[in-house]
């Protein structure tokens, strides 16, 4: 029972931390300079990873899909399977998990290092609210950047799949695009992309929590980075299940 009470205590602390992020993000002064800096860190510096991963994943997925659909004589469906698969699920989920790995560990480690080296105390000593200065811009940057990165991954995946298919079946680009988007509705595209804002919130809050609240000195830096990635990834997958249920509820047409 002791572990259960510790679990509830932990969930409560992370919940209150996330609530404080929400409240402080609406309360002036707004840290636009910090937000811009973090958007560059979270967005720009993750773009290459996301695009290359999406491209490779798109190519591989097409190769696997082709070998299966050939058995059913349904190779014409490859572009549609590719686009629906990427826009609805693969793009948002993989982008979220990749960002949890790259950015989550970075935020956890940076904030933990700042805590261990008394930089957070130094910010407080300068009459600056360290939470608003360090945590809120990082979380907001994740919330804003992840949907945009997801779109980049979706289109990179589509491009990878297209090139793979062109090399295999010599399909015309116009035909591929036509088949790719014929089954895709706006509700397939907008809701899954926007759900990654929730993934971004999870990554930002969880990794900031581990980094900002650590009290284990240098040892806490590594722990914060590891814990950030593990818990963010786990929560993203769990949240994905719940969000898909919400999307199906809000857009019943997508639940076919």
């Amino acid at each position, binding site marked *: 029972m002791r572990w259960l009470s510790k679990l509830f205590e932990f969930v409560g602390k992370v919940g209150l931390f996330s609530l404080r992020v929400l409240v402080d993000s609406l309360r002036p002064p707004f840290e636009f300079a910090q937000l811009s800096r973090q958007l560059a860190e979270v967005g720009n510096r993750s773009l290459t990873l996301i695009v290359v991963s999406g491209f490779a994943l798109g190519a591989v997925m097409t190769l696997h899909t082709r070998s299966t659909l050939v058995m059913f004589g349904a190779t014409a469906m490859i572009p549609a399977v590719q686009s629906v698969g990427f826009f609805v699920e693969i793009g948002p989920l993989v982008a979220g998990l990749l960002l949890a790995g790259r950015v989550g560990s970075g935020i956890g480690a940076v904030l933990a290092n700042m805590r261990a080296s008394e930089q957070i105390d*130094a910010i407080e000593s300068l009459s600056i609210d360290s939470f608003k200065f360090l945590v809120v811009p990082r979380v907001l940057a994740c919330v804003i950047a992840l949907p945009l990165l997801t779109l980049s991954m979706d289109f990179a995946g589509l491009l990878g799949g297209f090139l793979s298919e062109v090399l295999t079946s010599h399909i015309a680009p116009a035909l591929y695009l036509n088949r790719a988007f014929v089954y895709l509705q706006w509700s397939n595209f907008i809701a899954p992309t926007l759900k990654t804002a929730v993934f971004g919130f999870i990554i930002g809050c969880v990794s900031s929590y581990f980094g900002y609240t650590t009290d284990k000195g240098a040892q806490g830096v590594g722990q914060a980075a590891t814990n950030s990635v593990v818990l963010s990834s786990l929560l993203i997958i769990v949240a994905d299940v719940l969000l898909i249920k919400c999307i199906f509820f809000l857009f019943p047409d997508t639940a076919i």
Partner: protein
Amino acid sequence: MSETHSIAVEFKRVMKSFGTKRVLNDVSFQIGQGQALCLLGRSGTGKSVTLKLIMALMRPDSGEVWVDQDNVVGMGEHRLSLVRKKLGYLFQDAALFDSLTLYENLALPLSRLTKKSKDEIDDVIHRVLTDVGLEGDGAKYPSALSGGMRKRAGLARALVLEPKILLADEPSSGLDRITAAEIDELLMRCKTERGTALIVVTHDVHGARRVADQVAVLDKGNLVAFGSVGEVSQSENDVARRLITE
């Protein structure tokens, strides 16, 4: 809260524990404006904790901590930020912001807490960096500075707002004796020219003798001696006497 104090910092029966370990046990002392107090004691006796309590980075378990007529214990964040504007803090390892250049480290408090123009901020930073011997190093990141330079940069950041009270956590540790003496001289100038109250945690007895009007000796969380260097060197407490004389 309305009680009037003509003093810079006062501790009243302050207790602070971490888990079962009591770090400060019923500690009371006071220091006036424009005076210098050196906190001496063996490692782990609560000296740095004392500074953090003054800056309200920690809260005591009981007792009162008065900073320039305000009891900071239990004070709200808004009022606390007003009190902190009167304080400068040199951290033990300088605690410079890694992601900012030295210039940006100093400009951050000036741009956020004052209404100075860009030119005025440049002038202040140039003057303070010259004071600590780091003129021309403003574009460097903290990682490019040596230990001594980081310490001086930390002091520059603590001084940039011209605080009424300066807290310095081992300002001369890791420095050669000449640089340490220069730092002490700079602290003395703050005291004499600006009337800044100094509270300095140090293991450097020579520095303490140069700087201090008062010396406080902490041992196992207790304040075992308080007074001028001469008085403490005559103290009945063995630890205090040995710390100041050996």
